[in-house]
């Protein structure tokens, strides 16, 4: 635009031409404006594209790891493999769904026997030929057939596992995994013997799958590369002794139809899928469970159905009595002899006379019905009574095993009065009352018993063997049902069987047919009425939930906009700075236009149109740069910042909405900045503009007034926020920190504005360095707006660098109980649960540790924790977790305490003994839980006092109430609840799979090595708690370094702006510089003067930014755990000043070479 153009500006074409001419004439400054707008756009849009890319990459990863799998039917226990075919054969199934592929999905460890290398936490996938169909394009990669001469089964490993094991095709691998047990291992009949718990399987590597597609297969959403080994389903079933059974059905098709699949599954389900077995014997259907005891939901349901159907029922609870003795009434102690060893004891309904005849009943020796039993009475069968020499009225002492809180066996006794002796017939000699006890039921002789509990076979005499031969496990002792439930009922259940018989006796097809009707009716009703979830079978829409989770736990777009905020602000300030420079240069032109009578709005409009054209060009270029910026960020997150995400999987994804939205946002931001500048300049009096003045006295006065007001207001705000920052908890201090930082920066800038506008009042009489600096100060006050902008740019970026640098966290004090490691040195995990007690010598012996090793371990404080697998809720998982992993905290660990809490609910005693908060349930039924503050706040997006709802093993909703939040702890991946509650809600999750170890100083490595070696088959893997904490901190550190890099870019822009301001100032002041030269200043001294001006601005910016940052982070610094790299921080700032000074070298060079004399002549 030019003043001369006004007269011809009426035609649109001319206007366009003039506009172009004007833009080209001032091309240098316009280029700078375009560049600044482009940077602003690139940073803003780039941040949005980072978010797009993160979501897009997570989404792509979900699709890749699941292939065509849309749903998974998962069983806590096992399902019939035939269910897959039965589902597919249902009417209409094929129209909604495609394939149903049965699989065994387990976790274990894998080692290479030859090299000794091993890998823990490996997905062991038992698959059949159909699995490949779920991953189109990979069908030919799944050749698991044995080749001639191959001794062991085939296996495919993914590249990650192959790398970890250094395994190649043809190598043998040893897979160790948990052997499933029908009987809960923590019940009396369950085996915790390591030899029974761990199953090994030798395979030969037939191929290595790349880490793509099925190589990344996994059901849990996580971006890290999994380790996978695929083996033939049949081989794995055979190895685990689970023929024709699987624990997962992989279903493709209809991603949103999980509900329909669940219904279809229910239609196909059979009693066996609920873990039930029905033995039909004459007129009675005896319902038992594979697990030996009926789970409470099943018992409850079966009793309810029996009630509704009018069936007669006999609840049976059979257990084992170790010994029965007669109590000496005189001495009130049991007689040592005779004793009745290892007899089964049946709890039946106390009202024995009312027992339906169909079940046989109990009769006394005289043929009369057995009397009703209360909880103080007992009946013996004739054999037992004779053996003991007991007569009615005797008091008997019965010893039995009780499973303790920590699954230990404790011998208990109960004394009961012998109410009668029953005949050895019917129920009095019914082996059917006793379930199949592993190691017992199948023994030919009692002396061959190999039960899961300790037995003293020396107590068994010939008479006992005779009874075994005749009556097998038929109970010799009978008590009331209520007593049995009370004495040996546990969380797995109380009944060992439920006998059912139709009400009407014989049916049309005879008695047996009637009992079969009961079985058929049960098979008909159970799947329709009792959700399979109650039996631990759930249907998960893994793809839809995975894609939902792919939205991410962290809003990376927001995060990067946050990271880049200073950069965005810096570039916007640069836009303002350059535009102001450009328009100020044209002050005379604007003045002339106004003087000619051009209306003010027209002048403004012209300037704005120019600005808009420049902005649009800048935004267009910025969009291209944004793609490059986002690609660079992706590269950064895949390389130098890989610590933030833990895996290299990111690819650039571009959403048009982000492009256009971001571009509009940038345009709006820039427009506001430009509009303000135009308004300010075009508001000056034409005469002032013609004189070359770009500010008016009134404006200077107004600004000075405003600066003073802003100074006081921001100072007050800063003081208030500083006080507040010491009061709020560290985790909530973010907004206060940002507010305080901003207030301090504004306050400093306002003070500087006041100082600059006041000018230099003291006379400079010293021509040395001091005078030089004061001259520089006076000179930068010549155009205070520019100087303030420059200082603001540098100060903002310095603030980021220093504040972020000062947020380092100190490690190395994990031995302190109130640290994030709670005083523990090691944390370990196991793929196979360890049921033995590592703290006891017996437990260590059973686990195979030598005496020396055992003594070493005895010196360590070891806590084993139950684990319910679930989503990693730490910052290490980019997906949004929905079902957190749970840890059960034992009473011993709660008693020990430790760790530090960021927040605790306000309950009595919470501060003194926070771990007691986990005990019991809350009044409204919610379960108290702890989480790590960072995980709860940022990943779960929850908070103290809020509920996290998950499902228990029976598919029932569980409300976990967060009653305490740990501070920077090692428990960032999970939520913590009381062990006993975990055991109730997840009864099948027994044994310890997570361990905390507090060892003697200097022993950590030795203890870790001993445990890893001794528990290799359990997949035991330990890490120092410092490493665990550092892995979490690595994410934060990466974010911080990202922040610093972007802050550094902001600083670069700041120094660039500074150099431009300086250069512009030099050009404007060439006459002044020439005058100084004329009065004796050497060119070199003039150069130093200009350099000093730059240094003054730079130092002021750095000082202001650094001071504001240090004050803002003062609470953290004074908190005791701050680790501030002072030296490197100081070096960074020195480097900043040095780089900034170098950047001004151009201006200085210009001064030294400038032909100044022309300025004296007015050229």
């Amino acid at each position, binding site marked *: 635009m030019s003043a001369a153009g006004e007269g011809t500006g009426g035609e649109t074409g001319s206007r366009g031409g003039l506009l172009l001419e004007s833009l080209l004439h001032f091309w240098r400054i316009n280029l700078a404006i375009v560049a600044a707008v482009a940077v602003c756009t690139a940073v803003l849009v780039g941040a949005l594209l980072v978010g797009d890319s993160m979501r897009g990459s997570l989404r792509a990863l979900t699709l890749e790891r699941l292939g065509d799998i849309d749903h998974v039917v998962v069983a806590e226990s096992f399902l019939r493999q035939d269910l897959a075919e039965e589902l597919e054969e249902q009417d209409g199934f094929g129209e909604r769904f495609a394939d149903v592929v049965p699989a065994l999905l387990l976790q274990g460890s894998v080692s290479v026997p030859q090299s000794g290398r091993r890998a823990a936490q490996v997905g062991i996938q038992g698959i059949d030929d159909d699995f490949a169909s779920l991953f189109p394009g990979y069908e030919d990669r799944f050749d698991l057939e044995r080749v001639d001469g191959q001794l062991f089964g085939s296996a495919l490993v993914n590249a990650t596992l192959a790398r970890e094991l250094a395994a190649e095709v043809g190598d043998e691998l040893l897979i160790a995994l948990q052997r499933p047990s029908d009987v809960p291992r923590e019940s009396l009949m369950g085996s915790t013997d390591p030899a029974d718990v761990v199953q090994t399987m030798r395979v030969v590597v037939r191929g290595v799958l790349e880490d793509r597609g099925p190589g990344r297969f996994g059901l849990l959403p996580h971006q890290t590369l999994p380790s996978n080994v695929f083996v033939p389903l049949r081989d794995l079933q055979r190895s685990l002794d689970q023929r024709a059974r699987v624990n997962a059905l992989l279903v493709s098709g209809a991603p949103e139809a999980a509900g329909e699949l669940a219904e279809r599954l229910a239609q196909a389900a059979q009693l066996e899928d609920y873990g039930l077995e029905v033995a039909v014997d004459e007129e009675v259907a005896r319902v038992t469970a594979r697990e030996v005891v009926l789970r409470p939901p099943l018992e409850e349901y079966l009793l309810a159905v029996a009630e509704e159907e009018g069936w007669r029922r006999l609840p049976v609870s059979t257990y084992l009595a170790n010994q029965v003795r007669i109590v000496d009434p005189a001495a009130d102690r049991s007689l040592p002899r005779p004793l009745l060893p290892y007899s089964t004891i049946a709890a039946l309904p106390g009202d024995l006379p009312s027992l339906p005849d169909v079940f046989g009943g109990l009769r006394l020796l005289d043929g009369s019905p057995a009397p009703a039993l209360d909880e103080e009475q007992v009946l013996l069968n004739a054999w037992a009574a004779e053996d003991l020499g007991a007569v009615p009225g005797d008091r008997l002492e019965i010893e039995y095993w009780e499973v303790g809180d920590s699954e230990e066996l404790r011998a208990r006794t109960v004394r009961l009065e012998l109410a009668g002796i029953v005949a050895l017939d019917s129920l009095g000699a019914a082996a059917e009352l006793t379930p199949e006890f592993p190691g017992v039921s199948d023994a030919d002789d009692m002396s061959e018993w190999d039960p899961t509990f300790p037995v003293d076979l020396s107590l068994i005499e010939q008479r006992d063997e005779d009874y075994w031969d005749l009556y097998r496990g038929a109970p010799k002792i009978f008590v009331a049902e209520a007593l049995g439930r009370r004495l040996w009922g546990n969380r797995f259940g109380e009944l060992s069987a439920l006998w059912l018989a139709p009400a009407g006796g014989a049916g049309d097809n005879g008695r047996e047919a009637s009992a079969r009707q009961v079985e058929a009716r049960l098979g008909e009703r159970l799947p329709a009425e009792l959700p399979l979830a109650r039996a631990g079978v759930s249907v998960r829409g893994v793809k839809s939930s995975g894609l939902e989770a792919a939205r991410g736990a962290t809003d990376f777009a927001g995060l990067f906009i946050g990271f880049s905020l200073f950069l965005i602000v810096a570039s916007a300030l640069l836009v303002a700075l350059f535009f102001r420079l450009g328009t100020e240069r044209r002050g005379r032109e604007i003045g002339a236009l106004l003087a000619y009578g051009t209306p003010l709005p027209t002048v403004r409009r012209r300037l704005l149109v120019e600005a808009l054209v420049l902005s649009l060009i800048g935004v267009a270029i910025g969009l291209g740069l944004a793609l490059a910026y986002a690609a660079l960020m992706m590269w950064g997150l895949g390389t130098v910042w890989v610590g933030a995400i833990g895996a290299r999987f990111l690819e650039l994804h571009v959403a048009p909405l982000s492009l256009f939205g971001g571009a509009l946002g940038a345009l709006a931001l820039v427009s506001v900045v430009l509009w303000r500048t135009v308004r300010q300049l075009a508001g000056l009096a034409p005469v002032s503009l013609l004189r070359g003045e770009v500010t008016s006295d009134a404006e200077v006065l107004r600004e000075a007034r405003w600066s003073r007001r802003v100074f006081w207001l921001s100072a007050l705000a800063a003081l208030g926020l500083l006080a507040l920052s010491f009061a709020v908890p560290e985790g909530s201090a973010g907004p206060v920190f940002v507010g305080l930082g901003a207030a301090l920066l504004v306050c400093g800038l306002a003070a500087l504005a006041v100082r600059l506008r006041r000018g230099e009042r003291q*006379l400079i009489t010293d021509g040395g360095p001091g005078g030089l600096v004061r001259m520089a100060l006076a000179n930068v006050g010549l155009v205070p707006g520019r100087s303030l902008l420059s200082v603001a740019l540098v100060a903002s970026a310095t603030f980021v660098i220093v504040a972020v640098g000062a947020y380092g966290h100190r490690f190395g004090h994990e031995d302190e109980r109130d640290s994030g490691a709670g005083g523990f040195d090691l944390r370990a995990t196991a793929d196979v649960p360890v049921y033995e007690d590592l703290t006891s010598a017996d437990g260590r012996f059973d686990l195979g540790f030598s005496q020396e090793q055992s003594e070493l371990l005895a010196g360590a404080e070891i806590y084993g924790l139950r684990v319910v697998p679930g989503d990693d809720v730490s910052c290490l998982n980019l997906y949004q977790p929905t079902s957190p992993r749970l840890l059960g905290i034992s009473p011993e660990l709660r008693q020990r305490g430790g760790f530090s809490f960021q927040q605790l609910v306000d309950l009595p005693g919470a501060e003194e003994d926070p771990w007691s908060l986990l005990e019991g349930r809350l009044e409204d039924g919610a379960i108290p839980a702890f989480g790590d503050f960072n995980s709860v706040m940022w990943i779960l997006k929850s908070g103290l006092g809020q509920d996290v709802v998950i499902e228990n093993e029976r598919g029932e909703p569980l409300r976990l109430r967060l009653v305490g939040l740990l501070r920077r702890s090692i428990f960032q991946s999970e939520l913590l609840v009381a062990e006993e509650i975990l055991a109730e809600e997840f009864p099948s999750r027994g044994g310890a799979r997570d361990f905390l170890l507090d060892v003697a100083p200097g022993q950590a490595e030795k203890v870790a090595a001993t445990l890893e070696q001794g528990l290799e088959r359990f997949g035991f893997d330990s890490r120092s708690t410092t490493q665990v904490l550092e892995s979490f901190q690595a994410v934060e550190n990466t974010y911080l370094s990202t922040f610093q890099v972007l802050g550094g870019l902001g600083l670069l822009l700041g120094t660039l702006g500074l150099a431009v301001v300086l250069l512009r100032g030099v050009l404007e002041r060439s006459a*002044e510089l020439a005058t100084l030269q004329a009065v004796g200043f050497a060119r070199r001294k003039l150069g130093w003067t200009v350099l000093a001006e730059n240094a003054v601005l730079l130092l002021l910016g750095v000082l202001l930014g650094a001071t504001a940052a240090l004050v803002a982070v003062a609470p953290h610094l004074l908190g005791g755990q701050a680790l501030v790299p002072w030296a490197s921080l100081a070096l960074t700032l020195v480097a900043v000043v040095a780089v900034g000074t170098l950047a001004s070298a151009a201006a200085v060079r210009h001064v030294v070479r400038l032909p100044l004399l022309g300025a004296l002549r007015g050229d």
Partner: protein
Amino acid sequence: MSETGAGGAAAPHAAAAGQSTSRQEGGAVRARSLDKSYRLGGEEVVVLRGADLDLAAGEAVAVIGPSGSGKSTLLHILGTLERPDAGSVEIDGVDLSSLEGERLSRFRSDRVGFVFQDHHLLPQYGVLQNVLMPTLAHPGAVGTRQRAEQLLGAVGLAHRLDHRPAQLSGGERQRAAIARALINRPSLLLCDEPTGNLDGATADVVGDLLFELHRREGGTMVVVTHSLDLAGRFPRTLRLDKGQLREAS
């Protein structure tokens, strides 16, 4: 503001300045065969062609000539701001071609005072600071503030020491510029159209002031001017024409 009034008030101040300062001796100039040309728009413009100049110490000379005749260039060469393409200049016997860098700027600072057509005061500083500026070029000057105040008193600006240039009239600015030129007691005062931007009355006042200060401060004074009135007041006037200096009739 009336420059006449200001000029009238100048005499007592000037007297005061004269009482407290010794007169500057020296200022003899000897220039021989000065050549100087520029390239302007691709063409070479010769402004000095073998110009000679001899000035006795303490002499006051006016240089006149048409625009573009090289008057300012001559001043810049005498003031060491520019070097001639050929020829030599001696001031007080010092050959300027022998001076380089720091020594040259030191010489300029100590021996030469400049007054320009446009005052070229620094807008960010007050009048007193502006006058003191030349003393900052080379550290070590003592008692300069007192001299600056005396000079400002002599030019009638004692009451405006802290005023910024923007707060002064055109004549006041030029008077301040004259005070600045004299702060280091130069033996050679070079004035380039010192009244060119001023109205007649004010120009007279500034002219009076220059003569008065020259009388009191001593030294040699060369004034380049278009104003024949001003030139007519000098005992000697030179005309620069076709690159040569000639005595004006």
